[in-house]
């Protein structure tokens, strides 16, 4: 028999603190949709998506209803579009993206990821088509998300790809200038891209995955923040170790929610359950913020000295709680710090407490990277590439995933507030210091070799 206090503490977490399952993402291998004519590719792709995903939303809603937990987003991640586009032209890329967009809409799926190129060591024909078509694809579709992996700890950093991505980001921003460069919010540039990440915009279905899988993303910064507040209010001598323990316990419980929902959705859809990704993924809603957790931990101004240590502790405790809760933890599983999507981080950036350099330092110990950061629209492509290269270097050298989601806002200057709306929030355009000063480095191109795995100091 369940104990009353167990029931009430779960109710508190689910309802008073608004825990939800952030995303149920169906991973789908679409390599068998390859065909010599683009018409056939698109027809097969649509049929396959509808066959597997048409009941996804209904199933998630039913299972969510059974447990009283809303599944906020239902998404689809396909195997890299670059494989299907090999041997086709740029027109095919647009047709394929449109097919993805329409099929997702037909299935009532929010976003579809996997318009992806994996170019960490070199750029194949299909990859080039994906990369070059990004401005057109991201400006003409609503639900398609893209990712480009330009670095890995085994291959190093493909600086030719990094250089191109700087230019491409500016083109995407220009193509979506009416939405203040919003197209860039649907593209993540990665090092060590995970094959099973359920979170957008960077989700894709990796080559090592099954034909189809269900991956779950649970979040819950609000739940962690409330747990810390409760622990602090209990009083008594309290150290960071005690607070780390509290985060760990909360993460355990949150992960369990994800696994329960994920396994049942997977069973109902008849596909294997993949992973549960416990990432503290904030939303602009007040109380759903990683920044607020840092404040609760005693960092009065986010970005102040100590911020990196606090994020490190948070990320580690989250991973430990998740790993104990489930043997199927994967994806990112850490703390995200997307500036525009997190009200406290956005506020710190607006006040000048949080700079790009400090964010970069924080990403060396937390999940993902420079995420949802608005930068001046006139930032030179080489400088954007250099920012990407720095973030990739953190991932490659530390054998972890890092990502970049920068939005060069056309016409916007440092300090200007840019509104993206909805879950994407608003962001103050951040200052880029020493603009243009790394152009020669970027222009050298080539590949930064893979790092040595020993002599690690």
């Amino acid at each position, binding site marked *: 028999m*369940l104990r009353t206090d167990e029931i009430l*503490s*779960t109710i508190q977490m689910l309802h008073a603190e608004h825990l939800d399952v952030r995303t149920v993402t169906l991973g789908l291998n679409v390599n068998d949709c390859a065909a010599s004519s683009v018409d056939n590719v698109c027809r097969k792709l649509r049929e396959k998506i509808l066959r597997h995903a048409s009941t996804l939303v209904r199933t998630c809603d039913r299972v969510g*209803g059974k*447990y009283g937990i809303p599944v906020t987003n239902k998404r689809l991640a396909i195997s890299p579009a670059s494989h299907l586009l090999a041997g086709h032209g740029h027109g095919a890329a647009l047709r394929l993206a449109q097919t993805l967009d329409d099929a997702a809409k037909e299935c009532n799926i929010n976003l579809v990821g996997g318009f992806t190129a994996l170019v960490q060591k070199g750029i194949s024909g299909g990859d080039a088509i994906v990369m070059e078509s990004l401005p057109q694809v991201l400006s003409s579709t609503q639900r398609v998300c893209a990712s480009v992996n330009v670095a890995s700890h085994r291959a190093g950093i493909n600086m030719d790809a990094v250089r191109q991505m700087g230019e491409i980001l500016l083109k995407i921003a220009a193509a979506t200038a009416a939405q203040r460069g919003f197209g860039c919010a649907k593209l993540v540039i990665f090092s060590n891209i995970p094959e099973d990440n359920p979170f957008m915009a960077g989700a894709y279905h990796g080559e090592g995955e099954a034909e189809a899988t269900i991956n779950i993303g649970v979040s819950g910064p609000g739940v962690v923040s409330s747990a810390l507040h409760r622990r602090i209010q209990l009083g008594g001598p309290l150290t960071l170790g005690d607070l780390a323990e509290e985060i760990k316990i909360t993460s355990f419980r949150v992960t369990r929610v994800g696994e329960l929902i994920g396994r049942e959705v997977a069973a109902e859809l008849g596909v294997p359950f993949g992973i549960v990704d416990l990432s503290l993924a904030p939303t602009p809603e007040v109380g759903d913020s990683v920044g607020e957790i840092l404040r609760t931990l005693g960092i009065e101004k986010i970005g102040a000295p100590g911020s990196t240590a606090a994020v490190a502790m948070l990320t580690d405790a989250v991973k430990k709680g998740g790993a104990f809760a489930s043997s199927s933890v994967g994806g990112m599983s850490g703390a995200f710090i997307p500036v525009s999507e997190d009200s406290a981080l956005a506020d710190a950036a607006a006040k000048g407490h949080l700079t790009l350099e400090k964010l970069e330092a924080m990403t060396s110990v937390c999940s993902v990277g420079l995420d949802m950061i608005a930068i001046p629209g006139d930032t030179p492509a080489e400088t954007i590439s250099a920012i990407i290269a720095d973030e990739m270097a953190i991932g490659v050298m530390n054998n972890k995933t890092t990502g970049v989601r920068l939005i060069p806002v056309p016409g916007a200057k440092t300090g200007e507030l840019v509104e993206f709306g909805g879950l994407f929030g608003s962001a103050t355009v951040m200052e880029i210091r020493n603009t243009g000063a790394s152009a020669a480095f970027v222009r050298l191109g080539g590949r930064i070799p893979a790092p040595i795995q020993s002599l690690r100091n």
Partner: protein
Amino acid sequence: MKTRFEHAYVLNVMADDRPGIIAAVSGVIVALGGNIDACSQTVLGGYFTQILVVSFPKTVAAQDIVVRIQKAAPPGGALEVAARPYAAPVTPVEHKMGERFVITALGKDKPGIIHRFSQYLAGKDINIVDLYWDCAGEDFVLTAQVEIPKRWELALLQADLDEMGREEGFSARVQHENIFVATNQLRLPGGQLIGNCFSAEASHGRQ
């Protein structure tokens, strides 16, 4: 439920709560050569209550058990005992086939809420296996662990509870028990998380 000995009784003890009640009750059972086969006890508002299934190798008069426990009761308050012969109840088959859910309700306290709530569940043949109610100031919290027959659509039950809540001034939720097991206990439910992974018996036995 199978008892250790042939002659079984169900006892109900209610008393002003104080140390020594359980020792007194169990002492009488031991003295009569019997065994406690199951028991559950709680204290509510300063009152102790305990229900036990006990069995003996030889016939014992129910009244004898009652008198002995009352005599053995610790000083300092009243103690009442009731005893009746135990026969394993026949659980309706449908309840065994239903799954366990937890209904929670929160709102402003007023007379008649538990009655309205339980009457609704009774009308749906939903069995309450555990009920908790508490008030803090004007607010109440209710948790009920229930077995819902499979024939009911969960969404419709939730809609009915929502409507009742609107009329009576509370919010209520019905959720499968596995969410509470998953978030509170170290092991995942039954080693599997899918659908009907509990039989009613297995569920009853889990602590």
